[in-house]
């Protein structure tokens, strides 16, 4: 009973999420054939469970039907049930809602099919289906069930005692002393048996809960260290935890470290953000040393505690974020040996940015920028400006799809001519001031593009998974080879390669890319957030940051 009460008194606890920390929602903005859509998916936090899918048609096309179905990476499209039709949302033309069932853990996706006057359009949005929630029973329900259990036990004791006593009398007969005794014996023994049954049931319940916890998604653990001597950062993934993952074959394949694939041309995107103050931001691309060790050239970071977020994607399309903290001691870079050769070269797409702290509007570090906010622009390092096209009075609400729109103007105040940065028009990182929400997103939404490609490749294969999986060693070699080739390419060629199949990257009619970028995103919870926007102009990476208050 004590255990039950304890169990009931536990509050809802949600494990830090996968892919994007604390931000399980997936958004997609782009084309589904001839239709321009925004898709917003709220995946279940318990598998099996249902995802809430909302599709918004942007151009106000009429006479359209929207269908959606789940497609698993493990089984491909051939193992998919017939799609469900989404229902048009009353009072909001162009909005369609549907619930999609996810039965298996691992990389999944939702295929949206739009049928209308312009023909058919299909788009696949990846979703990582994992159980992350640990729920306790609401207190009211707990007491209600306890009350019913007591009532049912008493009633059953009555029934059994009667079954051994007065129910054996012929109509009209009076109960005898012998039957009375038997009735008491029946009542007492049944009470004992029922309590034992309930106790057994409770143990079963506890073991079911323990079993569920065993298959709960656990983020990868890693250790990050900085070597001031050679100016490198090394991230090592905890192999003990990797071994624990192998208990389940499907997830072992899904999360296998040997099956890492590049996303935007990098095997890992690592962000270092100064904990609490958020005034130091670095976006690095560590190289793979072995399947669990990654290393990068590090900028001369100010001393302090940093939050580390490292994004990876695999052949299975399973994208996740490794979270760690890093403490940089005072003067480690200054004390470094005079000219020890660095072991790793800096990645040309690495970048480092200083700004004011989240709680202050003045910069305390030399060269730090002042962050923008709705209505207040921010200056970029090459003299251009970035503007958040959000009216200052307009409230941003948690749980509502928000289009974060920015424009970049050149030093003359004219639309800036942006170049692709790692194959994308812009990258954004959104972080809550306590580090509990982190997301790396793009103008096409928060879905992982590498996951989408992984799923499409798998779907095109049409054979069971065993035939699809490569030898891990061979796969690692081929990816390493590809990375070497990619890094050796001239930048223009690399950008061209990375831009293949990327959404919204086609030059506009006048031959230049648009200077406005927008990121569809649903803030998961209220609070203070910082948004970093990264773009490229004249071969220089432009960083900017904005502060947002979400209600």
């Amino acid at each position, binding site marked *: 009973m004590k255990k039950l009460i304890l169990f009931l008194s536990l509050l809802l606890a949600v494990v830090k999420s996968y892919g994007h920390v604390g931000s399980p929602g997936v958004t997609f903005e782009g084309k589904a054939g001839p239709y321009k859509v925004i898709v917003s998916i709220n995946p279940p936090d318990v598998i099996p469970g249902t995802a809430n899918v909302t599709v918004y048609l942007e151009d106000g096309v009429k006479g359209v039907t929207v269908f959606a179905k789940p497609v698993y990476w493990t089984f491909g499209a051939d193992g998919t049930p017939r799609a469900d039709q989404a229902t048009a949302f009353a009072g909001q033309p162009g909005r369609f809602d549907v619930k999609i069932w996810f039965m298996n853990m691992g990389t999944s996706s939702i295929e949206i099919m739009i049928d209308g006057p312009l023909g058919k359009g299909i788009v696949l949005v990846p979703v990582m289906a994992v159980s992350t929630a640990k729920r306790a029973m609401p207190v009211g329900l707990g007491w209600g069930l306890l009350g019913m259990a007591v009532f049912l036990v008493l009633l059953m004791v009555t029934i059994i005692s009667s*079954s051994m006593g007065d129910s*054996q009398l012929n*109509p009209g007969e009076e109960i005898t002393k012998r039957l009375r005794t038997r009735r008491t014996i029946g009542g007492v023994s049944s009470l004992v048996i029922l309590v034992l049954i309930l106790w057994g049931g409770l143990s079963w319940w506890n073991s079911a809960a323990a079993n569920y916890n065993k298959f709960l998604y656990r983020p990868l653990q890693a250790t990050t260290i900085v070597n001031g001597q050679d100016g490198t950062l090394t991230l090592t993934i905890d192999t003990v935890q990797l071994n624990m993952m192998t208990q389940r074959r499907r997830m072992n394949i899904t999360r296998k470290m040997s099956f890492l694939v590049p996303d935007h041309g990098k095997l890992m995107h690592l962000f270092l953000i100064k904990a609490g103050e958020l005034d130091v931001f670095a976006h690095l691309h560590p190289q793979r040393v072995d399947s669990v060790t990654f290393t990068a050239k590090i900028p001369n970071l100010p001393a302090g505690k940093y939050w580390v977020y490292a994004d990876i994607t695999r052949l299975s399309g399973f994208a996740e974020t490794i979270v760690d903290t890093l403490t940089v001691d005072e003067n480690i870079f200054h004390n470094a040996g005079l000219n020890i050769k660095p072991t790793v070269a800096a990645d040309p797409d690495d970048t480092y940015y200083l700004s004011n702290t989240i709680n202050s509007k003045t910069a305390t570090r030399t060269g730090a920028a002042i962050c923008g906010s709705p209505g207040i622009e921010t200056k970029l390092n090459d003299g251009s400006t970035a503007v958040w096209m959000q009216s200052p009075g307009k409230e941003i609400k948690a749980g509502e799809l928000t289009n974060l729109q920015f424009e970049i103007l050149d030093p003359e105040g004219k639309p800036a001519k942006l170049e692709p940065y790692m194959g994308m028009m812009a990258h954004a990182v959104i972080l809550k001031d306590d580090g509990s929400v982190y997301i790396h997103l793009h103008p096409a939404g928060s879905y992982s593009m590498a996951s989408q490609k992984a799923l499409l490749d798998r779907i095109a294969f049409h054979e069971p998974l065993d035939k699809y999986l490569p030898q891990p060693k061979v796969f690692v070699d081929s990816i390493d080879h590809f990375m070497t080739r990619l890094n050796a390419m001239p930048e223009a060629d690399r950008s061209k390669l990375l831009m293949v199949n990327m959404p919204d990257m086609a030059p506009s009619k006048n031959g230049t890319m648009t200077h406005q970028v927008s990121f569809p995103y649903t803030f998961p919870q209220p609070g203070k957030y910082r948004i970093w926007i990264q773009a490229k102009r004249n071969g220089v990476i432009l960083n900017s940051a904005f502060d947002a208050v979400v209600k």
Partner: protein
Amino acid sequence: MSTITLSQASANDTAGTLKLPFYIYAVVFASFCITVGLIWDISWHTSIGRDGLFSPPHLATYLGAVTSGLFSGYYVLRLTFAGRKEEKQQSINFWKVFHGSLGALFCIWGAFTMITSAPFDDWWHNTFGLDVQILSPPHTVLLLGMITIQFGAMVSVMALQNRESITSTYSKKTLAACFMLSSGFLLVMLFTIASEYLTRHNMHGTLFYEVAGGLFPLFLVAVSRASTSKWGATRMAAVYMVVMALLVWILPLFHAEPKLGPVLNHITHYQSFHFPLLLIFPAIAIDWLNQRLSVKPSIVRAFAIGVAFVLVLLAVQWPFGDFLTTVYARNWLFGTTSWYFGSDPNNEYRYKLYDEATGATLITGLGISVVLALLSTWLGLTWGRWMKSVKR
């Protein structure tokens, strides 16, 4: 034992035949709904998959729960607050206030338990996932409720049947038919609960005979003993087989398509549940031995029936297991083509036996089955004696 004078009404009616209370038909019908609802639900899960609180098979089950709960509840309340004296004299009195029958109380308990399982199951799904397992704590609470309603239906009939020898007021035939049906529906439920170990793939494994030996004699023997018919267990097994077979034949006539991924077996119609076990043969042996050995001590009867049950079941089910793997069983009659939508249709065990016990394994396994059947029979005899004694 003191006896008080019975009220005029029932004393005068001893010669005639009273109509069976409608309540009895209602609870037998409730038991039927639960049986059909449960098997339909299993078919739903193997063919369509997507669960819902108000899915058609669930509605059939709820109809059973509501029917039994309402009729039994009304029976108790009417008896308590508007019952005639002679009616109260035939009832059991509980909690100082209420009057009812044992069967009605079982049905009420079952209905309340089924209701309790609903919010519990809903919470379970939200916490641990939608329908992760068939046997979860909330599903077990639900099954307990169902089976208690079915048992309550049987007890309701039994009480009148046992009383009947004194007052002779109800039609023997109708009572016997109700008893046969309610006991048969209960047997379907018992089979279903243990069905994981009793499939056609298991028929050459020792676990099959151990589970069957431990489970079925308890109920078949008790019913054989409690029945007014000489062939109580046989009739119970016959109802079980007919219901199971009818569902194998009827359900696949209806359209069904999987609504949950992954779908490995793209089907278009309901996949049926199992073809019934040939329980009628061991049931005949039980009834026959019960008649023959009625004067022998319980232990002798338990031994004879226990051994006979296992041997007869082995004699019919072992070759039948072989037959069910053949192409001759892959038709509407035996329904062995039925296959879960999430399983690979080319699975090598689709038409194979999982294990083939031989030699010492087989002999040891059968030995264990006989011991279990013996114990089960002995309990069944005791329980049957109790069933025979319930009169209210």
